[in-house]
């Protein structure tokens, strides 16, 4: 119920807010993610970017580790092989479990050696099916594009910048793939797998690092495109000279 008082929004849209900062006063404003209400006030609960959507105030995280979420497609490393499945490193505080029945539809005899499917140190693309309150993570390999990654290299980026690396409807990553001719898989957990010609692989890594550094700039897709085209050309020139 409003007390005939106009809601007062103190924070500006697209501004950085730090924990404890009062973002708005009034019962007509609603606290969204990253904020909490203390009586009349809406207060920032973490460091983030303020987004005002109608009467709701949200904070978009800018930093922090990955936290497993149901439905995410992630890249994991096999860290243990057990009797009935694999334990995976998810680049977060919690490891994931890939059970035999979620891994393959093959018949696996009791006591079979599971390393013939996924061995220690292998990287795989998988999808999170369930995360419990105690952060037990279940993943599956059944789905389009979910597979073991052979060859290539895996790099780690800030998870909060993953949406920027993917771009709108995948525009950014598709562009990098096209120009460098590399296979690229981006995991929500900040692991990225790149496979292709060694020089272009390196160029793709550099482009991704550039996106990570300059993620705040607008018109980044064009800038990265220019960067990639210039550098690909230079490398090709060098190759023809040699």
């Amino acid at each position, binding site marked *: 119920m409003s007390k005939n008082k106009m809601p007062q929004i103190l924070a500006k849209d697209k501004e950085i807010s*730090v924990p404890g900062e009062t973002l708005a006063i009034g019962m007509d404003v609603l606290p969204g993610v990253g904020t909490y209400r203390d009586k009349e006030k809406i207060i920032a609960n973490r460091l983030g970017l303020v987004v005002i959507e109608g009467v709701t105030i949200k904070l978009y995280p800018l*930093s922090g580790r990955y936290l497993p979420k149901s439905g995410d497609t992630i890249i994991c490393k096999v860290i243990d092989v057990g009797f009935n499945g694999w334990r995976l490193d998810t680049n977060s505080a919690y490891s994931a479990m890939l059970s035999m029945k979620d891994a393959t539809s093959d018949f696996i005899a009791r006591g079979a050696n599971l390393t013939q499917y996924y061995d220690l140190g292998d990287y795989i693309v998988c999808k999170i099916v369930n995360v419990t309150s105690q952060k037990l993570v279940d993943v599956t390999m059944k789905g389009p594009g979910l597979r073991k990654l052979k060859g290539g290299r895996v790099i780690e980026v800030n998870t909060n910048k993953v949406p920027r690396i993917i771009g709108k409807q995948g525009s950014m990553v598709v562009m990098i793939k096209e120009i460098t001719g590399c296979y690229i898989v981006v995991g929500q957990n900040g692991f990225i797998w790149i496979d292709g010609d060694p020089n272009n692989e390196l160029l793709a890594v550099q482009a991704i690092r550039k996106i990570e550094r300059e993620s705040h700039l607008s018109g980044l897709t064009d800038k990265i495109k220019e960067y990639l085209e210039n550098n690909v050309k230079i490398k090709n020139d060098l190759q023809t000279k040699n």
Partner: protein
Amino acid sequence: MTYKQRIDGRGFDETRPIEAEVGIIPRADGSAMFKIGNTWAYAAVYGPRNLHPKFLQDPQRGILRCNYNMMPFSSSGERVRPGGSRRSKEISLVTEKALFPVLNLEEYPNSVVDVFIELPQTEAGSRCAGICAASMALADAGLEMKDLVSAVSVGKVGDKLLVDLDYSEESYADGPVADIPIAIMPNSDKITLLQMDGEVNKEELLKLLEMGKKVCRQIYELQKKALKEKYHEADG
């Protein structure tokens, strides 16, 4: 003898010059530096991450682990012997207790957030500098926090009440000295650390707390500015 004027000439409610910066250790999940006069503190935060040994895990919430360490060359007198001491263990503990109330680690059961505070040089007020740096580093690590924590030491030298004692004041020989490090949550004025070495009476203590809170709010503004500066480019 009365303490008429502070040795370095600043006012009784004035701190030493403060410098704060966030994001100075790229490999850490969050990091910050806090310098107050000749006391320098660097804090690095790692986590939430997997916690071992397993018996330390708390299935209800993540735990906070702080580590306060003075570097061997950090003191102005003798070499500080490396490794933990009774004193560093105590300060690690009170730092943890000062920071824990602002953190919400319920989203991270069975995990740990590690905070490492390193001091390359010290001249009194090191636990307060450490807490200020650590709270900025925790915010930088993207953890859920109700508020930041700001800390400063207040005290009595001779018959004067003052803030941010330096080493010469802490070891003032011509009169009684009381040294009271405090930490507060600046937006709610709640106290998360209060220790005392020396003697003051009730009225003086209350007055000192008020002085300390005022200064903490000034420190909070600096912490806020440092955090926003790092992420400023991310704006828009």
